[in-house]
């Protein structure tokens, strides 16, 4: 039985070119699905059960990595990418097949050669590699997030973290307060905290995170509790017992 292939690539000219190259360099390979996005690729994967899947990493619907997870033990996967430094390093380490775009004939031949010798074997389980890559993407993104998505009326708005005076939990929702507006966010404070720069934002209460540079004065009120007054805001924020150590020696 001749081997079959799925090609998933969201840019049509590139998709046609790869199919053309495959047809000329491996004529026995029958292309059973040409998919313009990740969701179509997942559907085609289950419908056709191809021998090989060529998957672009960045695609609408589902990324190539997500499609590959579904292809585990089902198809031999070859990733295609223009430039994903982080993924490429992982592919090299784990000896995962990949093609760099633009795909050259020489490189394609080498990859196809390897694939042919592997056809008799069961497809590899790429789960651990994919997990490592996803983790890498995540860590590249987190730490010191520059933007926060917040709800404002009926719309979603991007708020620059640089504009934020403080975050506060009120009536069960988390609010972000800037000089000009107040909007609610879905992320709970607990998840937000590790994403913020700890030198810039301090938690001063179970339900309050404040920008350090926005603090104008810290004083003890009539009840003996610490209170923080802010620049550019009328609000005073209370410091709970657990976080008073922050202001000791100031």
């Amino acid at each position, binding site marked *: 039985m001749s081997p079959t292939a799925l090609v998933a690539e969201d840019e049509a000219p590139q998709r046609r070119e790869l199919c053309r190259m495959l047809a000329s360099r491996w004529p026995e390979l029958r292309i059973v699905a040409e998919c313009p996005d990740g969701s179509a690729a997942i559907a085609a994967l289950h419908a056709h059960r191809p021998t090989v899947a060529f998957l672009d990493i960045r695609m609408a619907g589902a990324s190539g990595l997500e499609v590959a997870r579904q292809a585990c033990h089902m198809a031999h996967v070859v990733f295609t990418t*223009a430039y994903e430094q982080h993924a490429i390093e992982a592919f090299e380490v784990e000896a995962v097949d990949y093609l760099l*775009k633009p795909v050259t004939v020489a490189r394609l031949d080498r990859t196809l050669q390897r694939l042919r010798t592997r056809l008799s074997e069961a497809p590899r389980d790429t789960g651990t590699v994919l997990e490592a890559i996803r983790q890498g993407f995540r860590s590249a*993104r987190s730490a010191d997030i520059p933007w926060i998505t917040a709800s404002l009326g009926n719309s979603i708005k991007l708020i620059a973290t640089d504009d934020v005076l403080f975050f506060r939990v009120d009536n069960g929702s988390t609010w972000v307060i800037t000089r000009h507006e107040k909007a609610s966010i879905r992320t709970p404070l607990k998840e937000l905290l590790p994403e913020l720069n700890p030198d810039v934002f301090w938690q001063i209460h179970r339900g309050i995170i404040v920008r350090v540079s926005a603090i104008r004065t810290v004083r003890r009120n009539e009840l003996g509790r610490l209170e923080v007054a802010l620049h550019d805001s009328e609000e005073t924020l209370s410091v709970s017992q657990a976080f008073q150590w922050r202001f000791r020696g100031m």
Partner: protein
Amino acid sequence: MHRLIGPAGPVFGLLLWLPVMVACALPVALLWERHVEGRHQREIAGLHRHRQETNLKLLVLQAQIEPHFLFNTLASLRALLREDATRAEAMVDALVRHLRAVLPIARTDSGASTLSDQLAICTSYLEIMANRMEGRLAYGIDVPSPLLQTPFSPLMLLTLVENAVKHGIEPKVGGGHICIEAERIVHTTGFAVAVRVIDNGVGLSGALGHGLGLRNVREQLALRYGDRATLSLVSPLEGGTIACIQIPLDGSELI
């Protein structure tokens, strides 16, 4: 080194000299005048230095060409060469225009950039992307002609357009469209121009990138206009994203 000073530079200079002229009119003048003159020269020198530092900062903020964009464009070109030489040729031309506008070492503009220049840069980029995405991306530009000559800082608008493609349309199954619009706005403090990049893509609720490009736009606006310019990004309930840059129209950049 690019000259980024706007037409407002000399006017600003004149304003600084105004107190000196007033001092000249006073009878006590001579010594006092020299004193003031010296101080103002030092101030002007200080401003000049500040402007140079700011220009350097701006240049760093503007340097941007993504390897991902470049390699994917070349990959599409490789395909089009075989299929449609005319289309391939048009794409090479658009890519060259784009690189000349974006690569810091290849830039030929003098820094006195207008909205019209920036729309041309965005058009080259959108032409390349529409060619690559073939039917998944449509675009339109709707800017009243009196606004075309508005001074407009380099590459900020392109960042918004790139974001609309990357985070709005590309992640959307089936694709979508992008429109660039501009209008003059009357504030109590004076006139402003608002330039909007509107897409019908997946909206802001989707995964964000690191937002570095947007951060650069914010910093550029702050360096040039202080707090008189704004950048906002909003996703309406019905989907898509509206990115808007608003700058004062009196042309008085800070540098």
